[in-house]
């Protein structure tokens, strides 16, 4: 359960700091946890109608420099957007990743990019 794992370099706790859509970055606030083949995230995106939040969970696998998210639970709402809750999500996102020091960059199939920074036990 340590933050350094040769076979699973993404395992651990990460702070979500930036989401880039079509080259336009947005600061986001939250965490992404990956441990024992399971992932979960909770993050907030600021907006004029208040923050929009997303809590998601599922399983994952790492193959070389590709991180595949298997989605199952999605809970999203706020910021004037409609509520969305499901335990039956089944889509998979195979994402090229890059790790440089304590920074994890995830390229989603949509073309969007998530930048995270590793969180350490305090």
């Amino acid at each position: 359960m340590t933050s350094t794992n040769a076979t699973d370099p993404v395992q651990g706790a990460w702070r979500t700091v930036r989401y880039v859509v079509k080259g336009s970055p947005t600061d986001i606030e939250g965490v992404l946890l990956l441990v024992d083949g399971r992932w979960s995230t909770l993050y907030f995106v600021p907006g004029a109608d208040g923050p929009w939040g997303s809590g998601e969970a599922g399983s994952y696998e790492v193959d070389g420099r590709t991180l595949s998210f298997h989605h199952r639970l999605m809970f999203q709402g706020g910021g004037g957007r409609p509520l969305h809750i499901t335990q039956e999500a089944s889509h998979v996102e195979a994402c090229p990743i890059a790790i440089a020091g304590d920074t994890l960059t995830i390229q989603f199939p949509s073309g969007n990019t998530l930048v995270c920074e590793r969180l350490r036990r305090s």
Partner: protein
Amino acid sequence: MTRASRFCFVVLITMAIAPTARLSADALAGAWRMVNYQGAASHGAATGQLLFADGHFSLTYTMDENGQRWGRAHAGSYETNGDRLIYHVEWSMEYVAGKPSVAPKPSDRETKFALSGDTLTVTFSNGSVQTFKRER
């Protein structure tokens, strides 16, 4: 007991206790699946996921009540002390009984936990009990 032997006794006791406290925190590390949720804050059959990694946690679950599905998600850091599990919640959102709440809401929530094999039980101060099974 001389002062020296008393000092040695205290040191030995401290050395014996310290790894146990650390072991408790590490014992939670990993992935857990919510299998039951009972108590005042529960709203129907609950399923979800609790992760502990590197001193941080993420808890996301849904509850099915009378054909309606509610959700809660919390995340932050955590610590253990004996049988106490303290969630330092940094982010929280919920949609329960038609009331949405989406905002960072820093707070500390002190609970008691028990580990028995692959079962983790977390009891909140309001009497609510969450039960989890370890995911492998």
